[in-house]
Structures are given as structure tokens and as C-alpha cells.
């Protein structure tokens, strides 16, 4: 019963917050609401005993990415931003599409049947601690994707430099 209650809380809050994110006129507010929402998501992860993910949700998402957003938001002049209306003219179309999409996804999801279950039972994870298990899997089975991820980060750095850095062409 209790988990259901908690889930209900998170569900409501996350949905509301995300709605706020996409509807606020002032980008700064949006970022702020998003921040709050990430914290909620993080704590929901805890209930799914994925504490490490919760951690990176806070550290990387909230800590890094959103801050980046904030910087950029502050780059543009908010005043002009606050004059223009936030939605494009044909926003109802977007609303309808989104709603219809939700409906169809919901319909599809209702027919969900779980796939085969693995060996990482809750008990096992609680015994080994999530982070350790994750680490083991990540650095053995998923070493290869991990390497690719590193390259992605590398090129993102390069890209950011190439595109954003003011420089006189060599």
C-alpha cells in the first residue's frame, strides 16, 4: 500500500512539474522546475533501488546539464523573450498530436508482458550493493559500449570547442 502511495505522489509531482517545465514563459523558471523534477525522479529511482542512477541523475543531470542550460538561457536577453508568446500559433495541433500519441502508447503499454527475468534479484543487489553490481557489469560485459561513450564525450568536447570557441582561423 505504502509504495503505491509514494508512487502516486511521485507520479503526480513529476507529471505536474514536467508540465510546468514546458509551459512556463520564463526559461529560467522552466529550468528551475526541471531541476525540481529531476530530484523527484532521482528519489523515485531510490524506491526502485537504483541508488547509483539516482546519484547520477542528481549529479550529472541536475548538476551538470541543467547548469549548462541555465548558462545558455542567461545568454539570451530574457526581456525580449518575455514579450513574445511562448507557444507557436498552432499549439493546439501539438497538443492534439501529443494527446493522441499518449493514448496510443497507453493502449500499447496496457498489453505489456514482462520479458524473462535475470539473476539480479532485489535481494542479490541489496546484498552486493547496486553500485558494485553495476560496476561489475559495466566493466566486464559492457566495457565496449563504455569505451564508445568515452569517445562520445570526447567529440562533444571537441565539438563544443570548434563551434563555440572564439578563434581566429589558423
Amino acid at each position, binding site marked *: 500500500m505504502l509504495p503505491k502511495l509514494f508512487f502516486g505522489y511521485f507520479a503526480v509531482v513529476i507529471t505536474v512539474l514536467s508540465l510546468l517545465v514546458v509551459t512556463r514563459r520564463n526559461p529560467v523558471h522552466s529550468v528551475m522546475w526541471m531541476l525540481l523534477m529531476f530530484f523527484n525522479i532521482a528519489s523515485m529511482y531510490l524506491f526502485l533501488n537504483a541508488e547509483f542512477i539516482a546519484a547520477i541523475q542528481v549529479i550529472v543531470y541536475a548538476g551538470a546539464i541543467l547548469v549548462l542550460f541555465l548558462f545558455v538561457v542567461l545568454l539570451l536577453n530574457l526581456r525580449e523573450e518575455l514579450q513574445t508568446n511562448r507557444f507557436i500559433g498552432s499549439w493546439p495541433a501539438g497538443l492534439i*498530436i501529443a494527446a*493522441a500519441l499518449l493514448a496510443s*502508447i497507453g493502449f500499447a503499454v496496457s498489453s505489456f508482458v514482462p520479458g524473462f527475468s535475470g539473476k539480479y534479484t532485489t535481494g542479490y543487489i541489496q546484498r552486493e550493493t547496486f553500485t558494485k553490481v553495476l560496476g561489475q557489469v559495466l566493466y566486464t560485459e559492457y566495457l565496449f559500449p563504455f569505451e564508445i561513450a568515452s569517445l562520445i564525450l570526447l567529440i562533444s568536447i571537441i565539438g563544443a570547442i570548434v563551434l563555440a570557441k572564439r578563434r581566429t582561423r589558423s
Partner: protein
Amino acid sequence: MQYYLLIPFLPFAAFLINILFGRSFIKDKAHWVAILAVGGSWVVSVATLVDVLSGKTLNENLYTWILSGGFKVSVGFLIDQLTTVMLIVVTTCSTLIHIYSAGYMHGDKGYYRFFSYLSLFTFCMLMLVMANNFLQLYFGWEGVGLCSYFLIGYYFNKKSASDAGKKAFIVNRFGDFGFGLGIIVIFLTFGTVYYAPVFSQAGAFAAKTVNFLGYDVHLMTLVALLLFCGSIGKSAQMPLHVWLPDAMEGPTPVSALIHAATMVTAGVFLVARCNPIFSLSETALTVVALTGAITSLFAATIGLVQNDLKRIIAYSTVSQLGYMFLACGVGAYTAGIFHLYTHAFFKALLFLCAGSVMHAMAGELDIQKMGGLKKYMPVTYLTMLIASFSIAGVPGLAGFFSKDEILWLAYSSPNPTGKVVWLIGTFVAFLTAFYSFRLIFLTFHGTFRGTHEQEHHLHESPKSMTVPLMLLCVGAVASGWVGIPHLLGGGAHFTEFMKPVLGHPEGHGTHAEEWMVMGISVAVGFSGIGLAYYMYMVRKELPARLAAQFSGVYKVLFNKYYVDELYSFILIRPTIWIAKNVLIGITDAKIIEAIVNGVPAAIGGFSSQLRRIQTGRLHHYATIMATGILIIVAWMLLR
């Protein structure tokens, strides 16, 4: 008897030599080449005649011309009585006219061209008459047509001349259309197009009917009539006679050779040649007879009122050709050919005389502007007079015998149409006599009505022209004597000679009737002459009065019954109108091209509409993407 090959190929050689080297080397010596060649083939023809008289005939193939599946036809030659007669007629006239032309065309800039055409014509005509199969006949048939096209349009700088040439060729094509189909039907029936097998088997199909274009028709009638289409065109019978008068645009020797003596008689030759087929179809014969009769009447009436020297003779030609068909129509092929043979001489003579007159009148052709020429050009006058007597059927002259035989056989033929055509024929004989002498009187008698310089220019023609006149004159007088009927104590040798090929219709009639027919024809002949004398020598104002009185009739006759106008109205103009306004204007432009250009245009327009979706605005892109996703998802989930 291989030398017969020389007959056609000597003129052909002459043609080649003249056409190739004429312009640069031979120039004004061209006539020598031609005359020698044609003369040569005349000699050979005579030799052939001798052979044939001694009973030798020949039918052999030179080489296979076309071979395709079951269809095989050779270039081959058949020499029998009919052929020989034609050979004599053609080569004789040709030779004399070649000689005549040497004088007549002297100094013309296309001298060599003229003679090469003339030789080519002779070659084709000879191939026509010597053929032993229908396709080669067709070859000669079209060949002579071509030459007449060339020679009519010889003065091609004159529009009228080139028009006339074109007209002649195309009108003939209409006839040949039927002729060609006839040949095809013959092949499909007999499996061959050689005379011998066709004629020998014809009897077997006498009763056969075939399905033609969905109708069941009597086979032999079909074949005969299809072939007759060719004759109608070539021999200028109704309704395809329109080309012949215009053909007078050509130089006069051409009119004499092609449009009087030889080519135009090819139609008669064809019917005579195919007599085994025609004889099997009562209908066909009737058609032939009536066509001939009507044409001869029709042409004669027109001839009454024309003023153009050559056109009058042209119409008389048409009318005489009608006579020949009339003969064939009543089964008197011999008589037809006999008339063809005599007619060749006096009609050629008439034309050459006309030419000689033109020569004197510096190209003037209107007989109203002539008169009293006999004192300037006695030879021409005399010869032309004799020719006219001959055509008018004055006893003893060539025309008399042939015409009389035709009328008698028509009268006496069992065929019910016989009597009808006899009546018409007799009446035409009267008309013929009348207009021939109208011509004589207006031209040679009375006082000169032309201009003074013309009068000063008047003179007798040179020897090269008058000699042929005299020679032909002999023909016009004597050529008939080979066919004097038994009635007059003659041997009717011609008929006997022709029997093997053409058979001989037995006239059902008493000597009395025969005398009567002969008498009537002589009578009408003379009365015609008399009337002409009365109207044009005694009461010169009468013709004008009559013309005024019956102006309606006169106009119709003078305008040749408006046949030309009719054709251009119902045939030529509509076709071109359709071509311009329907085919080009609508089918091609409005329908096909509209589609051809319309579809790309539509696609292009659609394209420029479609590209407006690409607004360049990110949201629209996103929306379209999302919509696409939604549609696919919904569709996939709901199906």
C-alpha cells in the same frame, strides 16, 4: 526467238544513255540515240509479227522478281497475237513521234530530258504489253503513268503543267488502287499471278462466290471489276477521266503518243487481255459496256463546245476510248482492239497535226483565233482532213471499219445492253463527226482571226514533222483494211488473227441488219459533217445564237459538267480541311499533345505546390514528423 528482248531494252538503253550523258555530252544529238533505239525495236517487232503470223508464240520467264512464301513472280514475257498487235502499234507510233519530236522540240533546253523520258515511256509501255504476269503488267502500268507524269509536267516552270502532271498521277493511283487489289485477289484465288494458269483455271471458279469485306460477291465479277478500276483510271473513263484533258499541258508529241495512241489504250488492252475473266461475269461486262458508252457520249458532248484545239481532240480520245470499252463490254474484244489499233493512227495523226498548227501559231491553241490556215500549211491541212474523215467513219478509211464492226457487234450481241449501247454509239458517231469537222472548219477554213504577227509567222512545218504526218496518214487510211468484214467481201483477217487470244463473238443477225447498221453509221457520220459545215461555213452566227439560247446547257458543257469542281469540293478540300483542323488541330494538338505536355506540367505544378510544405520552420518539420509517427502508430495499432 530471244531477240524479242531487244524490243523493250533498246529504248531502255536509249533512256539510260540520254539521262546519264544527255546533259553533259549528247545535248542536242539526243534524238539520234532515241530514234535509233525505238526504230530498232520497231524492226524487231515487225520480225516478231512475222514469227507470230507463222504461228509461233512465246511465254518465258527472265528471272524471279519477288519470292516470298507462296508468292512467286518473275520478270517474264508473253508474245502472242494480242501482244504483237500492241507491239506494232506502240513501236510504230513511237518511232514516228520520235522523229516528229526531233523537229518539234528542236532547241528546247530540256531536249535530252524529253527524249530520255520518251524512250523510258516506250520501254515501260512495251514491258506492259509484253508482260506474262499481272505484277509485271502493273510495273509497266505504273511506269507509263510515271512517264506521263514527267512528260505532262515537262514544262515544270508552268504551274498548270506541274498541276496537270500531279493530277494525272494521283487520279491514276485511284484506279491502280483497285487494280492492285485485283491482283491480290487473283493471287489469293489462283495462288499465282501468271496469265496462263490464271486464265486456264478461271473457268473453274465461274460460279464461286467469296466473302469480300463481309459481303458475299461473285468472285469473277469482283476480280473483273477490280481490274477494270485500273482501266478506268488509265483510259480516262468516267469518273476518272478528269486528268486527260489537263494532260494536254504536255508537249504535243506526248499527247499524241501517250494520251492518244498508246498509254491510254492500256486499259482496253487490260480488259482484252483478261477477257477469259471478264467473259465469266455478265455483270462486269455490262458495267464495262455502259461505262464505255456513257463516257463516250459524255466526252463527245463536251467536245462540242470546247475551243482549245488539243482539248477537243483529247475529249474525242476519251470518247473513242469509251467506244473501245463499249466493244469489250459486249464481248467484242477483237473489235475493241481493232479500234484501238486504227484509232492509234488517226488520233496520233490528229494530234501531230494540231502540234504542227501550234508550231505555226506559236503556241496558240484557241481555234476561235484561227481560220483559213489551209493555204499556209497544206500538208497539215490535208493530213488532218483525212484523219478527221477517218474518225468520222467515212467508208474506206480505217476508222470506218473498226467503228462499224463495234456498232454491228453491239447491235447484234445477245447481251440486252447491246441495243442500248448501239444507240448511244451511233449517236456518238454523229457527234464525233460534228465536232471533228467543227475543228477542221474553224481552223483551216474561213479567214484568219488571229493577230497580225501571228499571221506573218504562219508557215508549214519542217520535213521532220510533215513526213511523219504523211506516214501516219497512210496508217489512218489503210490500217483498217486488214479488217474488212466479210460483208464487204473482205477477209476479216484481223479478227481471224486475234481469235486464238480473244475469241470471236458470233453476231446474231441477218446481213440485212448488218447493212442497216452500217448504213446508219455512215449516214450519221456524213450528217455530222454536214451539220458542222452548215453551222460553221454557211451560217456562222448560228453557234453563238445557240450558245446564247441554251446558255445553261452550254455552260455545263463548256465547264465539262463541273466534274473537277465536284471532286475538289467533295474530296480534296475536305481532306485537307480535316488534316488541318481535325488531325493537327484537335487530335494531335488538343488531345495527344495536351496529354503529353499536360502530365509533366501537372507534375511540375504539383511539385511547386508540394515544396511549399518545406516551410523552413522547425516546428512545421517537427509537427509533420510527429504526425507521421502518429499516423503510422495509430494505423499499426488499429489494424
